[in-house]
C-alpha cells in the first residue's frame, strides 16, 4: 500500500465539462451493489439496502441503482461517473454506518479523484490579470531615457545615515550654537 504511493500518477485539478459554471450536474451516474444474501460479510450492505436504499434512490433521481446478489462472494460497491471513471470498493465486513458514509463519498465525488496525487490545489485559466511583475514594474519612466551612470538614479539613498554625516550634522549645529552664544553675549 505504501509502495503504491510512489507510483501514483500526478494530476492537476480539473472538472469535467465545465461543471458548475452554468449549473451543477451530479457526476455519479450509476451505482451497483453486489452482495451475498446469506454470508456475514455482506451483513452491513444488506442492512443498508433494507433501510436506506429506497430513500437514496428517491433523493438522487439522476443516479441509476443496480443490485446484484451473488452467492458466497464478498460485497462490493461500484460507482460509474460521467467522465468515464469507475470506482470499485470492497465493503466486506463493513458496518451499516460505514457503508452509509462510503456511499455518500461515492455520490459526492466527481470520478476517481483519490487515484491521483494533486500537483496544485488551484486551477486558473488566467494566471495574471494586471500583468506579471517584472523588475521594471512601478519604476519611473524617466529611467528609460536616462544616460547611466546618473547621479540622480545612482544616488545612495537607501542606506541609513552614516557616522560621517552624523558628525557633520553635529558640527554644523555646534557652529550655530557658538554663534548664538556669541550673539547673546553681544546683546
Amino acid at each position: 500500500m505504501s509502495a503504491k504511493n510512489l507510483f501514483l500518477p500526478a494530476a492537476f485539478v480539473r472538472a469535467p465539462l465545465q461543471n458548475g459554471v452554468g449549473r451543477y450536474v451530479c457526476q455519479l451516474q450509476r451505482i451497483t451493489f453486489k452482495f451475498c444474501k446469506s454470508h456475514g460479510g455482506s451483513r452491513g450492505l444488506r442492512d443498508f439496502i433494507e433501510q436506506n436504499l429506497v430513500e437514496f434512490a428517491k433523493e438522487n433521481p439522476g443516479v441509476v441503482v443496480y443490485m446484484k446478489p451473488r452467492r458466497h462472494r464478498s460485497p462490493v460497491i461500484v460507482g460509474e461517473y460521467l467522465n468515464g471513471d469507475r470506482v470499485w470498493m470492497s465493503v466486506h465486513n463493513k458496518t451499516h454506518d460505514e457503508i452509509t458514509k462510503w456511499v455518500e463519498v461515492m455520490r459526492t465525488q466527481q470520478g476517481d479523484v483519490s487515484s491521483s496525487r494533486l500537483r496544485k490545489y488551484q486551477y486558473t485559466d488566467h494566471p495574471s490579470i494586471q500583468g506579471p511583475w517584472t523588475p521594471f514594474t512601478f519604476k519611473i519612466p524617466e529611467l528609460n531615457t536616462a544616460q547611466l551612470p546618473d547621479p540622480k538614479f545612482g544616488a545612495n539613498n537607501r542606506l541609513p545615515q552614516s557616522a560621517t554625516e552624523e558628525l557633520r550634522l553635529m558640527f554644523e549645529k555646534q557652529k550655530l550654537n557658538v554663534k548664538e552664544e556669541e550673539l547673546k553675549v553681544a546683546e
Partner: protein
Amino acid sequence: MAMIRAGLQRIANIFSGPQGGILSRFATNLVPVESKPVPETTKDVIAACNKLIEQNASRNFAIVHLLGKQWRITDGDLLVVEGYWPPNIGDKLTLDKVLLAATKDFSLIGRPLVQPGLVTVTATVISKGLSHTRTHFKKKRRKQFMRINFQRAQQTILRINSIEIANKVNEAPKNVF
C-alpha cells in the same frame, strides 16, 4: 529675538537647503507630475475607478480568505479545499472575506477586508471526495522504532462563478446583511 530667528533659519537651511539640504537622501527627488491639491486628485481617481466599474471593462480578480488560507481567484477558477467542511455538492456560496479585489487597472485593498457588500464572490461546490492515501512513515535507526500511518484528507472542489464589484467605490454601503 531677530537673532534667534535668524539662527533657526540657518538650521532650517542646513536641513532643507537649496540643493536639498543634508536630509535630501531621505526625501524623494520626485516632483509630482500634476501639481493638483491632494483631495482633488483622490476624487479624480475614485471617479475613474467608478467609471471602470460601470463599464465592466476587464476581468476582475480577488484575494479571499477561506479556511485559513488565502486564494487569488478569478471567474471560472477551481479551488481544492482540504479538511472537514460542511457545504455539500451543488451548494452555492458567497465568499465574504474578501481581502483584495481588483480589475486590470485598479485594486481595492481591504484593511483587512474590503467594505462588506462592495464585492460579491460566488462559488459552487462541485465535488467532495477524499485525497489519495498519504503515507506517514517514521523510522529511527538502531532503535527498534518504526511507525507507519495512512491517512486520506477530505477534499472539496469549488468552482468560482463570479467576482463582481457590486457597489461603487467610496459610496455608502447598500445594506446587504
